[in-house]
Each structure stands twice: as C-alpha cells, then as structure tokens.
C-alpha cells in the first residue's frame, strides 16, 4: 500500500492508518508494539495536517519494517530487542517531527493515552463480547460434560477463552486475563489428552466462567482494576494445581475406587479451601481418618497412572470449526434507530396518496425493509437454554438427584427484549421442576416453539404430576374455595391454585424453591410480559408448564378511532365487527349497566370515554360501536365516536413509568405526528369490570380530564 503512496494522497494515507489500527489490535501481547503503533499513528496524523516532509515515505516504511520484524520473532528475547529498537526509532523520528504533548512526556502506556470516552466505549464493547463468549463457553462446557471426546467443542471452548484473554491483554484487565489464561492452560491439557474431563474439572471450568462474569460485572461498574479477593486467588491456586498435576484429582480417584463418597470429598475440599490450600487433600483425608494411609498410597499411584490417556480416546476434530457464522457487533441503540426510522418511513409513506406502480414498489420495498430490521433485534434461545441446563446440572448435584435435561428449539429467533424477560420465569420453573416435580431421578424438557404470532415456552418434567387432592385440601385449608364448590371444580381450576401467593403442598420448605413462594411470582412476571401460563399434568406422568408470549409486537394492524379529541388504536386482532346502532337498542339493567342485544346475543356495553376516563361521548342519533372479544371469546360492545381508518401502526413503548396503565399498553405516532394510544382490549374489559366503567362516570361530563 505504501509503495503506491504519493505525497498528498490523503485517501491512501487514511487507508494506511486504518491498517495500522487493525495491526494494533493484533499486538495485544506486546504493549510496546501497541505503543509504537500509537505513536506512528499520531505522527501520521500530524503529517496529515501539515505538508509531508520529504522523508515521510522513508520513515513510514522503516516503521512498518520494524513492525514486520517484530511480528516475525518467535522468542520473547528477540521481540524485546526489536521493541527496544522501536522505542528508539519512535523517539528519534516521530517525536521530533510531531511537536505535541507527546514530546515532553516519556513513553505513555496506551491505557492512559487513549481518549477516556473511546475507552469507555470499547470497554462496553469488550464486556458485551466477553459475556457472549462466556455464555457460549458455558454451553460448550456442558456439551463436553455430556460427550467428553468432542474435540470440536473443546477447540471452540479453547478459542473462546483465548480470545477473551487476548482482549484482556489489550484492554489491560490483568485479573480476568490471568483467570482466562489459567483456564486456557487447563483446556490445553484437556486438548492434549493430558487431563481427563472429570466432574471436578467441569466444576472448575464452570466456576471459572462464573468468576469471569463477576469480574466483568465489576468492570462494568467502573472497577477496572478489580482486586483479587482471597476467593479468586484460592480458585487460581486450584486451577494451577489442576493443570500442573495434569491428572485426575485425588478425590475422583478415591471415589472411583470406592474409598470415599462424593459428600466426603466435598467436605475435605471445603476444609482444604478454608485453610487456603495449606494442606494437601490426602493429608486431610488421612488425618480425619476417612481413609488409611495405605489407601492413600494406592490412590496416588492410580492417580498418576490415570494421567496419561491414550491419544486414541480423543476424537478427531469435528466440523465444529466451520460452524461459526460470521457475526458483526452492532450497538442496540443503532439497531433501534434503524427500526424506528423505518417505522417513520412507513408512516411517511402512508401520507403519500399517489398510487403509481413506482409507489407500489416503494411500499413493497419498505415493507421488506421493516421485516428485515425487526429481525435485527432477535436472538436465539441458546444462551437462555444453556443457563437452564447449568442450573439443572448444579442443582441435581446438590439435591442428589439424577436429572437430565434436554432442550428443543434453541435456534428459534426471538426478540431480545422477550428473551431477557423470559429468563427469570424460565429458571424459576426449571428449579421448581427439579425440586418438586422430580423425586429421585427423571428428566426435564425445555422447549421453545413458535405458534403464529406467539411463542410458546414449555418446561416439562416426567415426575409424579400434580396431586389434585392435595392441592384441593390445601385450598380448602386456606379458604380459597368453599367446601360445597370443591368437588365441582375442574382440574384446571384446581391446578390454578398453585399460582396463589404462598401456596405450597410441601410440608417442609426446601432450600431450592423455598416455601411455595414462586409460582405466583412466575405468573405475575409472565403477565407483565403480556404472556399467559398454563399447566398440563397427569398423575405419574409429569407436569408441564406452558408459557405463551406474543412475539415481537412492534407493528400491529389496528383500527384508528376517535373518542372526543383522543385518537386511540384498537388492534384488529380483537375486533369482531363494526356497527352503528340506535340509542334505543340499548337496555339498562340495575339502572346503570348498559346492555345491547345483537342478533339474539346480549353483550355488555363499554363506553370507551368512561372506562378510560377521558373526554368524549358526544350526543348523536347513532352510536358507533366495535364488537370486541376477550380471550374467553365473550363479546363486548365498545362505544366510540368514529372510526378514522384501518392501518398498520408501529407500536412504541410508553416506558417503565407507564407500565401500570390499564387498558392502554403502548403508543404510536400517527401521520402528521400526533400520538395515538394503543388499547389492550382484554385489560380494558377487566378495567371496566373493576371500575364500573359500564356506569356513566364523571369523565363523561368533563370536556377534558385535566
């Protein structure tokens, strides 16, 4: 590139700068190299502004040559020598040619030189990438635990840690770097077949992932130089021992030979940990008289023999290497901006009345743009499901149950927001299934499937199922149902009791799921995300909890209606028909509840202005009404002033401060920039029932409510 350079060719010069910047990232292992590139860049930038001196070309090629030389060195000593040369070169050439703050200050580490804002930006990027890699790593560890010979996964796992380590080096996060480096050592041994992937090694790896998460959290909170607590150093010691031994832990050997059970091993390990690893495992075991010294000697021999695993046991590297899709990172606000702007484009197009072929084409393209943009915000279920698997793994060990888990539908693409909201209820249900659903052994199935405009998440166990009688007894005890009605309750009605706060049929509280607090929380979380939850159970066969959520609802088809000065949107999905009726068709019950009979169907009348407490409700000969249905398909007659149009609207959140609003769930920007409020018919009907909105209320007489 440089060869083509002519003075004044600024385009090419900026290309060179870009390549240098790219190279800087490669020099993660060499701060001096990075520093050198920084200086070169600063110098070039200086040249940018002024006229390039005659020796510009020469100097730059020398600098690049130096970098190439450094790249080529394999030993640290040789590299150090080149790095020395670099520093000298930089001082001699760049600093003189580029008078600036770098002149007075001695070699500045990249860390402090970097613009604080840029640094913050790159830290955020680093954290999000590292987190993603860690969750990927966790998935891989769990895969490896199930099939230890999967060399492809092992290689991918190694790569994940290696990348994090590399980035840590560049970002100067030494503690996380050290941690991932130690993990990498362990993985290297696994890869070379020098270490067997025992349960304790898996524990160690997972522990490392957890600790990395913790450090990342600290970094995110601005604690960039996370101090190494005693806990972390103990862990690092453990890791180091694991990799230096390159053999199964003594505990594992003793378990295998039947000398100790897992519980004892845990006890010894915790004692060892509390003493900061001052004593060896065997010493404690013998001292506590858990094993004889003869047993210990025998086990130690076994241990060293087990260290060498024949290479043939390691499977050939699979095709996993090539599985990685090409992925680029984009900040979510950029995506949101794109989605918003495409939404705006749709709206703007709605205002164009022209109907030429060209316009039709534009509309079509916009539509696909919109769909494409929406998909940018989606993610797969992999991360979520791997967390669930991890929970099952850890919990089944601690509960001493044999529980397997398998998942379906990990590849389903779901809106990120929804995935975030899914996490808590899903984990709750999984824990619940493990603790209450399954007795000693069994399996859990988690599945995600898309059904139309909803996504269904199932958590199913093959345990004993729900006990109708026990639940009913408890419900009676807590007076949730009168005895006379108890027998006539349907199964579903009975099972619904377990969603009551504090409801538990378990006599004693367990550590895991607590005392029955939980399912009510799950239900409220699901509801908050506009989802529903149902139960399917059979005695002796198991229980399934099925959560259903609306898939990304950013664009809906709605009727734009007017009530007074207010513009409201009613989703067409809940609209049955549109009617004009005479006032005389209404009848009143109890003096204030209005009903209407349409084709021999009696339905309650809801005046939208009164239910919401907004102005409107004009006097007219005719009432304009929309027949809407709630989820139980009960029709209601919704009185409005007029229907303006039927159109697709881009739904915008009203923000967390307005989540408690009832009957209104979102807003939208209509053509002309006015705002319409999006009605949730189900909530609206419930609100009317609670507030007596079917009665004429004070709102009717107010021109505006404020």
């Amino acid at each position, binding site marked *: 590139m440089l060869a083509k350079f002519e003075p004044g060719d600024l385009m090419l010069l900026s290309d060179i700068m870009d390549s240098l910047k790219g190279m800087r990232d490669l020099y993660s292992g060499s701060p001096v190299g990075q520093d050198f590139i920084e200086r070169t860049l600063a110098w070039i930038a200086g040249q940018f502004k002024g006229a390039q001196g005659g020796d510009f070309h020469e100097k730059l090629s020398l600098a690049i040559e130096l970098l190439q030389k450094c790249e080529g060195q394999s030993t640290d000593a040789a590299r150090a020598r080149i790095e020395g040369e670099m520093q000298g070169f930089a001082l001699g050439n760049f600093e003189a040619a580029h008078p600036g703050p770098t002149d007075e200050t001695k070699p500045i580490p990249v860390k402090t030189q970097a613009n604080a804002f840029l640094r913050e930006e790159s830290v955020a990027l680093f954290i999000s990438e590292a987190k993603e890699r860690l969750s990927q790593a966790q998935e891989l560890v769990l895969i490896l635990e199930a099939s230890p010979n999967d060399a492809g996964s092992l290689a991918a796992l190694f790569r994940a840690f290696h990348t994090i380590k590399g980035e840590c080096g560049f970002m100067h996060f030494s503690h996380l770097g050290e941690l991932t480096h130690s993990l990498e050592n362990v993985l290297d041994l696994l890869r070379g077949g020098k270490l067997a992937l025992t349960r304790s090694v898996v524990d160690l790896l997972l522990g490392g992932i957890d600790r990395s998460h913790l450090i990342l959290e600290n970094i995110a909170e601005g604690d960039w130089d996370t101090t190494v607590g005693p806990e972390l150093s103990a862990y690092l010691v453990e890791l180091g021992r694991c990799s230096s031994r390159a053999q199964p832990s003594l505990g594992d050997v003793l378990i295998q030979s039947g000398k100790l059970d897992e519980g004892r091993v845990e006890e010894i390990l915790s004692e060892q940990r509390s003493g900061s690893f001052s004593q060896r495992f065997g010493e404690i075991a013998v001292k506590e008289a858990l094993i004889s010294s003869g047993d210990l000697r025998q086990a130690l021999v076994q241990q060293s023999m087990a260290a060498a695993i024949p290479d043939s046991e390691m499977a050939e590297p699979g095709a996993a290497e090539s599985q990685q899709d090409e992925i680029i990172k984009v900040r979510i606000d950029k995506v949101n901006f794109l989605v918003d702007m495409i*939404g705006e484009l749709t709206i703007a197009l709605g205002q164009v009345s022209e109907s030429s072929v060209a316009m039709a084409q534009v509309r079509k393209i916009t539509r696909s743009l919109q769909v494409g943009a929406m998909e940018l915000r989606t993610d797969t279920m992999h991360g979520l499901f791997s967390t669930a698997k991890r929970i099952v793994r850890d919990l089944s060990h601690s509960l001493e149950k044999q529980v397997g888990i398998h998942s379906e539908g990990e590849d389903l693409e779901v809106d990120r927001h929804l995935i975030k909201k899914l996490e808590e209820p899903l984990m709750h249900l999984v824990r619940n299934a493990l603790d209450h659903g399954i007795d000693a052994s069994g399996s859990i199935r988690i599945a995600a499937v898309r059904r139309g405009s909803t996504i269904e998440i199932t958590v199913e166990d093959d345990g004993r199922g729900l006990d109708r009688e026990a639940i009913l007894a408890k419900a009676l005890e807590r007076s949730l149902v009168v005895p006379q009605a108890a027998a006539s309750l349907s199964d579903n009605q009975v099972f619904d009791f377990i969603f009551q706060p504090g409801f538990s049929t378990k006599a004693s509280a367990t550590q895991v799921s607590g005392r029955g607090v939980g399912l009510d929380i799950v239900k409220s979380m699901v509801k908050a995300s506009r989802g529903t939850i149902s139960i399917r159970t059979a005695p002796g066969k198991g229980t399934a909890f099925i959560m259903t959520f609306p898939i990304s609802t950013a664009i809906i088809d709605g009727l734009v209606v007017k009530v007074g000065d207010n513009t409201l949107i009613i989703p067409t999905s809940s609209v049955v028909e549109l009617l004009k009726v005479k006032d005389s068709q209404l009848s009143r019950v109890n003096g204030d509840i209005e009903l209407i009979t349409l084709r021999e169907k009696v339905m309650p009348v809801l005046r939208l202005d009164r239910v919401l407490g907004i102005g409107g409700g004009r006097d007219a000969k005719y009432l304009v009404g929309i027949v809407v249905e709630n989820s139980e398909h009960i029709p209601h007659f919704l009185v409005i002033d007029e229907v303006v149009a039927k159109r697709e609207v881009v739904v915008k959140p009203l923000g967390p401060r307005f989540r*408690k609003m009832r009957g209104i769930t979102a807003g939208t920007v209509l053509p002309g*920039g006015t*705002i319409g409020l999006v009605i949730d018919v189900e909530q609206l009907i419930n609100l009317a029932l609670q507030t007596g*909105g079917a009665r004429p*209320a004070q709102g009717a007489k107010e021109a505006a409510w404020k």
Partner: protein
Amino acid sequence: MTRRKLMTGPRYLNFVLDEESYGIEIKKVKELMGMTTITPIPQTPAFIRGFINLRGQIIPIIDLRLKFSLEFREYTKRTSIIVVEVMFGGELLLMGLVVDAIRDVASVPDERIISVPYINAKIRSEYIIGVANLEAGTMILLDVVKILNQDEFVQIKGVGDSAPDKGVAQ
C-alpha cells in the same frame, strides 16, 4: 478585550418558574424546545400533561408548576420544554419538563452552593440540592432525578375501592 472569568464546576441550566430562578444540571438536559402539541394521557396525575412525539419517540411531559403544586398557567410563547434524561429502574428515560421560561447556562462552583434546609415554601426541600449564589443572583438548584422518580405516574381511579365515584354527574 474582556477577560472572561473562568468558572469551573458543574454547569446548570437556568430557568424560571413562578418568577423564581431555578437550575438543573446541564448533564441531564438533552434538548430544549418550545411548546408543541401534547396528547393527554388518561390514568395519570395532573402534573403529567401528556405525551409528545420527539422525532418518533414518545416521551411524557411534566408540568413543573403542577408538580410543585403551583397554580396552572396557560402556556405562552415563552413557555418551554426542557427534555431531560434520567435513570429509572436501570433504564434511561427521556422526559419533558414544562417551565415558564428558559434563561441561560451558568457554571456553579461547588463552593457557591449553600445547602439551606428551607429555601422556599413552594418546593419540597428534598427536591432541592442547594442554592447557588452567583453574580447574577441566586438560583435554586433542583434534583431532577428525585423530582421525576418519586411519584407514581399512573393513578387508576376506582380500582381497589368499591366506593362510588365522587361527584357522579348524571
């Protein structure tokens, strides 16, 4: 040539409310705008005037007079909206504050801020950071985050109480 005295310290946006001078930290201010069409929102207290459309984003508008229980004043040409960004429950939110008029931006060094328990009877003292004593006069510094995060934004009448609506007009 006049030498401008360099004032260090956080900068505050100076605005007027009921003939008094107030300031909020400029860091929290996203933009300033004149009055625009406000879409009213049901189920909210009076100080929430409604939503506006800020380049495709829907943001709530809070009338600071009403928030501080001052008398409502019809909006004029000088009435302005200060769009602020505050954290709520881990999310960054944009909100618009209606004030009588916007003045300027002033640097307020920490040593100029006096914390006085009761500054004026109009505003709850917990909303006030302190009073800044500047050459141009005094300015009451407000804690935007506290003002905007304390009260519930949604009030649903009739839910939870079975008593009939007061003042039913029929």
